[in-house]
């Protein structure tokens, strides 16, 4: 019955080994899909390479459906999974900042790590930038603490907030995924090829 570490099916000492293994697979998949290349990543915004949304939305959809099936079959307790807490104000502003950062740097933290691993200097600089950014944030924390914690809604899920059934949403998301892929392919055909 999952999650496995909760019910002591796997003891907590293994937790860190598991973390390493999961990171290993994560890094491998990201790099093999091409996420270590910044020009490939920003292609999604300019229409010449849609790998980001293809991988991302497929991953979210597949994982969502898998987890819901596991929950239904009794192998997993969906309600015990970690839900990211919602801080509306802070998160909206934070994601806007991150969007700009994505355009400038061409990476996101996870992919920048894969770039570092294969020797991309711009990836290393980006990771250094993250370090400085977090450092700066923590130094300025006393001033922005209030904003940081504003709009707290708790660990809210889509089901709680909008009252949609989880299964309906998962199905809707899958349909959205297929539509997005189709649109992406159409756009891709009409944009000129870019060598990178």
């Amino acid at each position, binding site marked *: 019955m999952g999650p496995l570490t909760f019910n002591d099916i796997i003891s907590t000492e293994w937790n860190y080994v598991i*973390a390493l293994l999961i990171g290993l697979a994560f890094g491998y998949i990201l790099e093999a899909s091409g996420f270590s290349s910044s020009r490939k990543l920003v292609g999604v915004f300019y229409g010449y390479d849609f790998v980001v949304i293809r991988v991302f939305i497929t991953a979210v959809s597949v994982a969502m459906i898998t987890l819901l099936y596991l929950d239904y079959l009794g192998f997993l307790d969906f309600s015990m999974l970690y839900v990211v807490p919602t801080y509306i104000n802070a998160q909206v502003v934070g994601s806007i900042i991150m969007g700009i950062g994505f355009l400038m740097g061409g990476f996101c933290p996870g992919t920048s790590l894969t770039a570092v691993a294969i020797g991309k200097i711009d990836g290393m600089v980006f990771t250094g930038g993250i370090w400085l950014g977090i450092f700066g944030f923590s130094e300025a924390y006393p001033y922005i603490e209030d904003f940081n914690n504003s709009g707290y809604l708790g660990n809210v899920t889509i089901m709680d907030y909008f009252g949609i059934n989880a299964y309906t949403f998962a199905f809707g998301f899958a349909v959205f995924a297929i539509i997005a892929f189709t649109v992406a392919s159409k756009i891709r055909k009409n944009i000129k090829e870019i060598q990178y």
Partner: protein
Amino acid sequence: MEAKNIKFRHVYWNPYFGGLMLGLLIAATFYVTGRGVGATGGTKATVVKIVDVVAPEHTENQEFYSKYVDEDKNPMKNWLVFETLGILIGAFLSGSIKGRVNFRIQHSPKITSKTRLIFALAGGLFFGVGSQLARGCTSGAALSGSTVLSLAGFITMIGIFGTAYLFAYFFRKLWI
């Protein structure tokens, strides 16, 4: 020139296949550990640790750090630190198998390397600040959060991609 192009011609997985693998991995992660993956947590732990080593009194006084620094709680003994390590190793494995490991700066031919590095630094800064505000980055919040249908996950995902689409025009010189 030909030979160099062929050497760096990138052959990657089919994106849908990659997405399938990633999705199964995320599901497995949740099944085994009850949490998703994350990318900035390891960096944050490193920041806390270094500040702690350099200026211990500062960490005790500062609210942000004091949560992570305790008498016996080592901030580096964190699930995310090990996972970050794993990402580095895994990516290196994948890159080296395909012959992609090499020191280089990748940039659009229209800008210089220096410009690229400056913007990379700026991008990283923004991401560092933004990820702390949003309690996650694309991997931690958007990817893992959306999988369990958390509201924050979708807010973050729409925020990042929406903003980037809106402002893509202004940064086009960097990329195309």
